[in-house]
């Protein structure tokens, strides 16, 4: 296991190097100049070259790339061109907000999706199944930029339970997390249902039933345990996407997360911040993928045995 972890971490370094380098060259390649964006239309006669020099943007691109990589090795991601603040402190502030939102949305998604999927699989073809999958279809179809304001109208303006938007305490986290969580739950519940239905025809399920075990005990103890692998894969991908920032939900609820920082920075051509965001997002994906692989081994001990026999 330690050798496996070391090899995965080595791979992670290469993945992050590759992703951040590709993004570095892409963001410099697309049209648009951070100095022009900073100075705006109405600044007359400004000394653009001096500003470009002060920001280090007049150096050859390969030199800038080298400086960026050297900085990464020293955990120094540079200064934001626009806000003149260390990129690390911006990322720190935004990543905490994103992690809060991702964690609660993830919990909500799991709490909705697993019961819904299990009920739909257990009562396949009945009204329960139709209702559960109908809910799922609804969750998939409603875009977050519409669901968000709808929830605000109902729970903030109508009932007065939660704040409209912003990040001002736990209550402000609830509506964005529900918005994000329900759309994730929609996909996840369909996966739970189909994975469960696949294993419910297996011999060991029949054996468990023949031993006289109760319906839900068979379903949860034997069926769900064996259906975990595809569900874990999807959960990992969803959590990775959440940690990368949910741009639409963050924009609607004014949630100061990583996704909105990335979009704002791309628009301003704030190269150091874009690069920092991409590094954090790729790191999140790598870590989540690693955790997913470890979870596979927990869910299905045969995976671990296979590796040992290799």
């Amino acid at each position, binding site marked *: 296991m330690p050798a496996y972890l070391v090899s995965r971490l080595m791979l992670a370094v290469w993945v992050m190097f590759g992703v951040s380098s590709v993004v570095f060259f892409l963001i410099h390649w697309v*049209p648009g100049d951070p100095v022009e*964006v900073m100075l705006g239309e109405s600044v007359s006669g400004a000394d653009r070259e001096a500003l470009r020099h002060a920001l280090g943007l007049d150096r050859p691109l390969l030199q800038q790339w080298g400086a960026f990589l050297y900085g990464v090795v020293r955990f120094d991601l540079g200064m934001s061109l626009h806000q003149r603040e260390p990129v690390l402190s911006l990322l720190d*502030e935004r990543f905490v907000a994103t992690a809060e939102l991702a964690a609660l949305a993830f919990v909500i998604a799991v709490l909705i999706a697993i019961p819904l999927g299990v009920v739909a699989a257990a009562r396949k073809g009945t009204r329960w199944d139709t209702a559960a999958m109908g809910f799922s279809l609804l969750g998939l179809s409603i875009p977050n930029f519409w669901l968000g304001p709808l929830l605000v109208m109902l729970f903030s303006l109508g009932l007065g339970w939660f704040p409209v938007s*912003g990040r001002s305490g736990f209550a402000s986290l609830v509506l964005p997390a529900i918005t994000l969580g329900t759309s994730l739950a929609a996909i996840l519940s369909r996966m739970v249902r189909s994975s469960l239905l696949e294993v419910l025809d297996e011999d060991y399920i029949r054996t468990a039933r023949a031993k006289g075990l109760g319906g839900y005990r068979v379903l949860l103890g034997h069926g769900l345990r064996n259906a975990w692998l595809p569900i874990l894969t999807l959960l990992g991908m969803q959590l990775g996407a959440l940690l990368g920032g949910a741009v639409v939900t963050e924009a609607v609820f004014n949630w100061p997360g990583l996704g909105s920082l990335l979009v704002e920075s791309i628009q301003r051509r704030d190269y150091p911040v874009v690069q920092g965001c991409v590094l954090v997002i790729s790191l999140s994906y790598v870590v989540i993928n690693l955790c997913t692989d470890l979870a596979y081994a927990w869910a299905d001990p045969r995976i671990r045995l296979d590796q040992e026999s290799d």
Partner: protein
Amino acid sequence: MVKPLVVLLCCLALAACNPGDSAAICFALASAPADLDPRYATDATSQRINRLLYARLVDFDAQARPVPSLASWQQLGPFHYRFRLGAADRRFHDGQRLTAADVAATYRSILDPAGASPHRGALAHIGRIEVRDADTLDFFLDREDVLFPARLSIGILPASGIATGQSYHRQPLGSGPFRLYAWHDAARLELVRTGDEQHILFEQVSDPTMRVLKLLRGEVDLLQNDLPPELLQYLRERSDIEVQTRPGNTFAYIGFQMQDKDTGRRDVRRAIALAIDREAIIRYVFRDAARPASAVLPPEHWAGTELPPLRHDPAAARALLTRAGYSPQQPLRLSYKTSSDPFRLRIATILQRQLAQAGIEVAIRSYDWGTFYGDIKAGNFQMYSLSWVGEKSPDIFRYAFHSDSLPPRGANRGRFRDARVDDLIDSALTSSDEAEQAQYYAQLQRYLLEELPYVPLWYEDQFFAAGSGVAGYRLAGDGSYDALLHTTKQ
């Protein structure tokens, strides 16, 4: 299963908890300020907030004439201005007295190439600054500049902090009527009014619908501009919200590439101007929250003038195009660049339809701001739309239309070259008599309306909306937040 969940939720609650402050006046902003150091701030929000934090030498009256703020001035020679600081109690928020040395240090640091201030270019003709005593200083220029006092509206910082290289980007220290209380996070900035300790919380709420919903629920007390006309109309119809509007000076226009074989022809630009129905767009899209424009500066500006409105006449536009050699078989085809802002895109599609009625086929090209702006600067367009926001100085004419102002030296994006325009601008810039300057600018604006390097569209109104309990806020013509000085909340 339940226990870990409860623990997780408690952790989340603690992590997300931030103290609220219902006594503060909460002002919703579409975009957060980027920089509170006046030497570097260029975005409109930062500049408006910096006006609250810092005192400045010069301010502007309702006609955009420079008027004394911290100091009055005298022109002692064509290249020599003397500024005397007033007798008022001038103190920075840390108690230091503001002196001429602080003014000199602020402007010297802007002029220092190592500081790379974006305002350096506009002040680069300052040859030297001499401090005569604690209240007097002299500016010596390298060239004559009759508009010079209007350029000295940048907030003053303490010389001691500048000398030690203190950073004011997020820790401002000014002598204005407000001081920094806390910059809680990227989206929330809290100031305190020094006179009565009233707190003002600026909160960024990017989504306009959410800004309105927060106002309705009382989470914010004020919002100003940056709303789609439908939402403004919705707020106007509510009895619990006070809405005020006043004519603004944000000038929207269509710009042309003058080197292009189509848009470089005056008849084509005239046909486009005739094909646009501004009145209809103002009535149905802006819900009357705009007024038609005929020039960059509005008529109430001291250098502005009353000009005849551009008429809407698609038949005349067709006739002009026929005369120019276009026909239904060989129509005029143009590309129109705009930003990806949904409202600007909507305007673009309406203009596309109106131009089609005059036989002009327009392809809309919409880009994110960085790409769009890069293309405009590079002259890579046939036709584009943009706005000039809060322009106060008639120097805008030199910057946008003089043949010496081609990018990167200025904003003559369309590469417009006209000897008469250059001559009128130069004459106005060397005249020391304000009436004479105004006369040159009036002639210039009439001529620009004939040549149409820009097709003027409209000036967007300023507006604000306030929840119940807020009193004393009044709109400024330039969109500043200065009225917060007198705003109260019950």
